[in-house]
């Protein structure tokens, strides 16, 4: 039984028995992560009529994504995995989006805010570059790639995690992927008198 959680765009949760999707809940609201996270998780559990302690694995989208919402899902996943004593697996969300596609050469982008994109490139499903932050005008440089720009969700994160765990791919990194430093520079201090 695997629970997947994603707050990289909206807020979503999905529940899998083996590779079979049992239930999923998706909230589109791009700002309501703190409000919706528990409803998403309890929603998938109650739809499948399962208690939280039936879970065996938890997968969570770790970005890159706008930070504030992203952290809610990761914090909830960490706090679930601790008391339940189950494995926690971090999924780089661009990998999850790419895994849901069939294109041979694929450039996956998501909104990075501030007029920028998070991007990663894939060839036959294998990541060739990224994740990185790019300027939208530079996507033309990837002319030989099919471009896909869509948000991740828990279902994609879960499906990728199930495949990756089977393949023995390491998903042990569960910290958020930010790709940018905190947006702040030390101030030298201003004079107050003219």
């Amino acid at each position, binding site marked *: 039984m695997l629970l997947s959680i994603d707050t990289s765009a909206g807020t979503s949760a999905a529940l899998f028995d083996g590779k079979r999707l049992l239930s999923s809940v998706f909230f589109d609201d791009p700002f309501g992560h703190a409000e919706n996270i*528990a409803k998403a*998780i*309890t929603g998938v559990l109650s739809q499948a009529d399962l208690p*939280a302690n039936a879970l065996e694995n938890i997968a969570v989208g770790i970005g890159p994504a706008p930070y504030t919402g992203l952290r809610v899902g990761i*914090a909830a996943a960490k*706090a*679930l995995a601790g008391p339940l004593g189950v494995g926690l697996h971090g999924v780089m969300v661009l990998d999850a989006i790419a895994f849901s596609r069939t294109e041979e050469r694929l450039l996956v982008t998501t909104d990075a805010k501030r007029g920028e994109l998070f991007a990663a490139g894939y060839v036959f499903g294998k990541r060739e570059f990224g994740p990185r932050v790019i300027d939208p005008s530079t996507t033309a440089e990837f002319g030989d790639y099919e471009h896909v720009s869509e948000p991740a969700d828990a279902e994609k994160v879960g499906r990728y995690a199930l495949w990756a765990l089977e393949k023995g791919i390491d998903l042990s990194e569960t910290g958020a992927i930010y790709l940018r430093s*905190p947006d702040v520079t030390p*101030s030298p201090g201003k004079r*107050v008198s003219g």
Partner: protein
Amino acid sequence: MQLRTLAIEDLAQVMDLERRLFQNEAWLEQTMAAEIASPQTHYVGAFDGSLLGYAGLKVSGPSYSCDVQTIGVEPESQGKSIGRTLMNELLAFAKRQGSEEVFLEVKAGNESAIGLYLSLGFEQIDVRKRYYQPSGEDALVMRMPISQPVVLGIESTCDETGVGIVRGNRLLANALHSSMDEHAKYGGVVPEVAARAHLEAISPTLDAALAEAGIGYEDIDAVAVANGPGLSGALMVGIGAAKGLAVALDKPIYAVNHLVGHVGADVLERGAVEVPTIALLVSGGHTSLLLVRDLLNDTQLLGETIDDAAGEAFDKVARVLGLPYPGGPQIEKIAAEGDPNAIRFPRGLTLPKDLEKHKYNFSFSGLKTAVARHVEKLEDGGQEYSKPDVAASFREAVIDVLLTKSLWACEEFGVKRLLLGGGVVANARLRQEAEQRCQEAGIELRIPRFSLCTDNGAMIAALGSQLIMDGREPSGLDFGAESTLPVTTVQTT
């Protein structure tokens, strides 16, 4: 039948019944009067026009136990469950007080009373031979355990990741991770840096709290989390974790007010927050003056800073003086060598013209500017100056205005108690001056230990526990971060 708390006006009726019931073993009238009037007791009466029965409980504070002092039911009304109703009210009160056990003595031959106590959950633990005089009858000592909730509280409003655990009003753990050092190079708390640090610290801090309390997740009865006021991105990490925990454990969650949490921290020191009290909360993020008549039901914001928080002013002035962040300890260090009266810096919002609108508000921005101007002028003129004098004079101005307004509030509202909270309480000069001024004004000063004054998870757990003991319903699962949560909202439902 009506159940209500007894007041001194009821004394005649109580004594009448007391004498009828207990004859030559009846309490003296002045004993009963003192019992009813004592702030450490809870006396209730059952009325139906006249008094049918009464009972009293003593809170043996500061402790975690209560004693049933007396109970009596009018002979013609016995057998109507009035005694049980009175006892249930006392036991509910004991639970709300955070008591973990209730004791009573009963005459060894009073079978109906003993039967009642046994059915309520009391057990005999001792016999006191010839306890009742003059009859010489033995007393059975009985005890009833009260289970208090184990609450885990999460605090992430600013730069401290706190996880505290309490049982009722008892502190079991107070684990903390601070990201203060990461903010040092920026000269102040950077919200994004704080939020990132919370996410990294949350799991280790949860583990540390459980280890400190010596309990496991399975022992937790409820989760509490501060959902404001504070930095939105930081709050959301704590909320996400708290909700994940509540879902994993299938336990209720309580979203509580961070500032009220600061006031409530005192329950962990003395078993209750003594009210009414004026509370002065001063930190890097807040400067608030509160009138607390009842922790859960009646907290009023008298005033707050209209610009910088007091702790922020210390940080900014430290920078003017070329000292590192955080400014409080740095200013404290060099001010020790300085003259607090060397420079008369302005006391914000204390002029007669300010008092109408801003009697209890604070402003530290002008003070910071005044210090900067003073220093710039001297430096521009190439003059040597004493940094310790500037630091000491600045600190004196901050402390003076904080305490002056706090004592104004005590006087205006007739409150003889002042509670300090927040990180700026670390300032020894503030504590010293507060002690002196409160003593002169005949005001009791309460300062919880420093680890309960700064932001911490224990105070959040304690406030959650207070709500549970008061019988409040848990919050829903859909609350969010409220960066400007008003102090009147103790719990977000």
